[in-house]
Each structure stands twice: as C-alpha cells, then as structure tokens.
C-alpha cells in the first residue's frame, strides 16, 4: 500500500451509545485517540455555555482505520459525546462520505443534536439503531416517527459489537451517500 487514498466516515450519537465500540468493530487496528484543543476561533461560532470560560478545553476523539483493498483506507471517527464539543464536528465531517448516527432507543433524545447537526450541515447520514444485547426494543418505524426522520434517510438496525452488522451499516451509509450524490440532493 504505497499511496492509498483516505476516505472517512463519522460515527455520531449521544454519550455512551456505542460509538467507540462501533469504531473498534470496524477497525483493523485498536482504536486510537486524538485530542484537540478548543481554539479562540471555535469559541465564537459555537454555543459552549460554561465551557467558554474554561481555558484549554480538550476534546478526545476515537478513531480506527480499515484497509479497503490496496488503494483505499477508510477512517472511522467517533464524535465527542457532549454537545459542547460541537466545535470539532465541522472538522470531522469535512470531506466525509457521511455519518452513521447511532441511537439507543431507551434514550432517543440523546441523538437529536447529532441529527440536527448533520441535517443543517448537509452531511449524508443514516440512523443506526444500536440493538444492545441483540434486542430490538422499538420498531424502526416507531423510531422514524419519534425522531421525525424523512423517508429517504435509511434507518437500520445494527449492533456495534459485531463486525458484520457494523459493516452493513456502513454499506448502508455509502449507498445512501451515492444516492445523494447522484441526485444532487442535499442530505
């Protein structure tokens, strides 16, 4: 692999919804962590509440990589959990294929900030219901209604712990991104 082309997807969702597990299941390597400092510039564009007064706020992002043949490398980035770290999201979604927004049906509200962000930023995204313990507690149609997700956005059932399930969710995202790209529509 001399000069592989890097591509990227983002895994978003609320705190402890399984983002890092998802990253790990997809990755060829143990997930790595990169940290970013909040800069002055990001303070002005983000609603940070109390965080603005704290010097040197640091946010950690987990990520993994998976080789797709010899010519492509897919990076999978987990978003920081808390809303106040949205300043990193612009960088995370920049040039990304799109995002998988993970949902825990017991805490549906937690995914609203991620969905709002992806919609507003025009990032192709799919919703992945993380079926903890392999149990699907709510039907995807109910989740669609509860989250007010338009019909053209796929809602899939996944399991962050299992490579095949995670891969299928990513395949769903790539297909959705292709549909968006070919119609020229906004996600």
């Amino acid at each position: 692999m001399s000069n592989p082309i890097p591509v990227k997807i983002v895994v978003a969702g609320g705190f402890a919804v399984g983002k890092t597990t998802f990253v790990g299941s997809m990755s060829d390597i143990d997930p790595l962590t990169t940290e970013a400092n909040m800069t002055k510039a990001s303070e002005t564009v983000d609603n940070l509440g109390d965080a603005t007064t704290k010097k040197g706020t640091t946010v950690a992002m987990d990520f993994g990589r998976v080789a797709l043949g010899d010519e492509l490398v897919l990076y999978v980035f987990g978003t920081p959990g808390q809303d106040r770290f949205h300043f990193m999201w612009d960088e995370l979604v920049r040039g990304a294929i799109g995002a998988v927004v993970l949902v825990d049906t017991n805490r549906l509200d937690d995914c609203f900030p991620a969905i709002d962000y992806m919609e507003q930023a025009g990032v192709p995204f799919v919703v992945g219901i993380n079926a903890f313990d392999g149990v699907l507690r709510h039907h995807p149609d109910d989740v669609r209604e509860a989250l007010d997700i338009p019909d053209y956005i796929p809602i899939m059932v996944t399991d962050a712990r299992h490579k095949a399930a995670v891969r299928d969710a990513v395949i769903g995202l790539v297909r959705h991104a292709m549909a968006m790209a070919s119609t020229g529509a906004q996600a």
Partner: protein
Amino acid sequence: MTSEETERSAFTVRPYTVTRGRTRTDVDLALETMVKASETGMNPPGSIMHESRQILTMAENALSVAEVSAHLKVPLQVAKVLIGDLVESGHLATHALTDSSPDERPDLRLLERVLDGLQTL
C-alpha cells in the same frame, strides 16, 4: 488543576513548546490527510527536532494526520503545525482525495470503489 486537566497532561513538555507557540499551519491538512516521508525525509538533518524526527520515522509508511497526533500523543493542532513544517521543508509529502479539495465529498466513482471494498470485508 481539575482532574480533566491532569488527565490530559500525558506529554511531559507543554505541547505548544515544540511549535514555538504556533497553533496553525498554512498547509491544508484534514484529519485523514495522509503523509509519507519523502526521500529527503528518510534522511533528515541531525539538527531536526526530536518530534519531527519521530514523525518522519512513523511516516515511512503513509499514515494520517490523526494517527500522527495519536501516536505522538500531542493535540491535533500541534501535530498539524509539526506536519505543516515538514511539508513545507519537503520532508513529508501529503495526499488526500485525488483531484478534489478536502472540503469536497467523495464523488460517485470513489464511493463505488468504497462500496466494493466494504463488500469484500
């Protein structure tokens, strides 16, 4: 010092010391931009900074900006400044998506290749 601050002080020197206080680089680097040591980068001068030498060693095989930050245990901005310097001095070569700016999403042809790759996993 809060526990959060204590926790992130994994590096022994203050991180921006190695960038001489700089937090930005003129080189456009995305998280996933890959860097690889050039021929000159494989044989850097003895005067080169320790951290820069570490980057060149790990970049003998292409790796991303985010990986450099993770392996070096420095914040992303610090990694970008150090990488930017090495790109400008010709020690590192970058490659991102071919023929497109880092702001653009992958085109349909590239997405098809990604899909093919995923289906063989």
